[in-house]
């Protein structure tokens, strides 16, 4: 699955790729592909998001979120239904958390490739490295501890339940400021690393982090942590945003020339795009 995509990029310096089997081409790509670091980070990102979805929705089954309005017996029942799923699923989460690092490095690299100050790349890198802890790990720890001892005082399990979902949904600032840093970098960039509309889409994503704030206040309704606005609509925006930047980063890697000027367009594009690029350079 990985190979056709990797092959489409033209090697810059390395020997020609062998025409042999799947495995030998993969090995060649691993050893010689001039963009191997970028493709590595990109694939780590794709696999991470796949696993993230599978683990949170199907293995641990903690998403979509249950209601914050539940009483204590319902919450303990919910945990005992998911006992093994939570313990094993979050075990895998702990194992793969580090996959965030190459992912954030790739996003920071996209900013480094822009015509903007390094400030943006480093700020984004630090903000998003930080974000994994309140945004994911704290939830995983709280959930695991809650599932660890089914005989624990139900009130404490209920507290862990609140802690898990509120830390997960209610961690807003890191993602908001991070998206805004990225947005400003994209809008200022003259190297055409990303289209400007993606910058505006980052603003949409940042605004959904504002919208989730009422989750700290309401126990039921559209604004609770499982509400139609605070969760469902935000999730749609987040998934769209993530999908879009995965595709755009792939394009960026394909266009990468390791220079410092504007990123060239893909060669197979039409004449219109070339004149467009020429105009942009002008």
């Amino acid at each position: 699955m990985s190979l056709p995509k990797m092959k489409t990029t033209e090697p810059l310096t390395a020997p020609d790729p062998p025409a042999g089997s799947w495995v030998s081409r993969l090995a060649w790509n691993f050893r010689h592909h001039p963009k191997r670091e970028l493709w590595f980070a990109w694939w780590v990102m794709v696999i991470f998001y796949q696993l993230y979805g599978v683990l949170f929705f199907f293995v641990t089954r903690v998403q979509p979120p249950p209601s914050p309005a539940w009483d204590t017996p319902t919450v303990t029942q919910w945990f005992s239904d998911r006992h093994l799923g939570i313990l094993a699923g979050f075990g895998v989460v702990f194992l793969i958390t580090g996959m965030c690092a190459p992912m954030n490095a790739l996003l920071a690299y996209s900013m480094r490739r822009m015509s903007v100050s390094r400030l943006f790349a480093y700020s984004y890198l630090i903000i998003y490295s930080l974000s994994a802890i309140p945004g994911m790990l704290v939830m995983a720890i709280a959930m695991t501890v809650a599932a660890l001892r089914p005989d624990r005082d139900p009130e404490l399990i209920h507290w862990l339940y609140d802690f898990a979902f509120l830390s997960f949904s209610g961690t807003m600032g890191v993602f908001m400021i991070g998206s805004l840093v990225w947005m400003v970098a994209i809008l200022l960039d003259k190297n055409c690393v990303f289209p400007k509309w993606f910058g505006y889409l980052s603003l949409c994503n940042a605004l959904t982090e504002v919208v989730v704030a009422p989750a700290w206040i309401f126990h039921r309704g559209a604004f609770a942590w499982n509400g139609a606005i605070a969760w469902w609509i935000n999730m749609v925006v987040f998934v769209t945003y993530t999908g879009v930047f995965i595709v755009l980063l792939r394009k960026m890697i394909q266009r990468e020339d390791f220079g410092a000027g504007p990123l060239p367009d893909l060669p197979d594009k039409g004449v219109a795009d070339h004149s467009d690029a020429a105009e942009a350079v002008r």
Partner: protein
Amino acid sequence: MRRTDGELILFWTLPALAIIWASAFFLFPGFLHPMSPTMSAEEVAGFYRDETARIRYSMILFNWFGVGLIPVVILVAMQVRRMAHRTPILSYSLIACAGGPPTLFLIANMFWLLGSFRPERAPELTQLLNDLAWLTFTILVAYLIAQCLLLALAIYWDRQARPVFKPWVAHFNVLIAVALAPAAFTALASTGPLAWDGLLSFWVKNIAIAAWIIVMGIVLGQTIRQQRAQDRVAA
């Protein structure tokens, strides 16, 4: 030429750090022998009541020096920067990892200190704080695994006549990553090797971390010395 004296100073904080960490480790009464997840709430509460002082002082020591490893990881990231890569992605990744383990360790550290702050509170609450502390402490491997694997990959991809690190350093890092991996699943068992006082989740994991610090310390020291020698020749 950039001055490397500062790097050398930072590097020599490592042995001091190792000594402090080792003494804090032995001072904390819950590490030798590691506390079992099967302890009842009353036993846990009793432990915090009896050993309050040692828990507090060892954890204060850890609180002071827990983040001490960050400069060392950044030193590694700087060396990765010198490798024959086309992009800074791998050194960025290491920087992204650097803050993770100390932050998680500080969270665990705070839970232990909280537990010992009012040992007379309800045993259930002390047990909860103890669970949170032990689990967070054990799963801080999350970032260390990635750190080792990324460093190994960086070394494998460092194709030049005189690579920054020798290939065996990469193999060693993969080995450490493998040794750390089981600890992520510690919550699955309360007895046996996976439990947080067990062979894999406690002994193998912590010995692997210690081995990584010692071996990487020596390797880094040699590399920095070679780098200084090269710089002197170049100058």
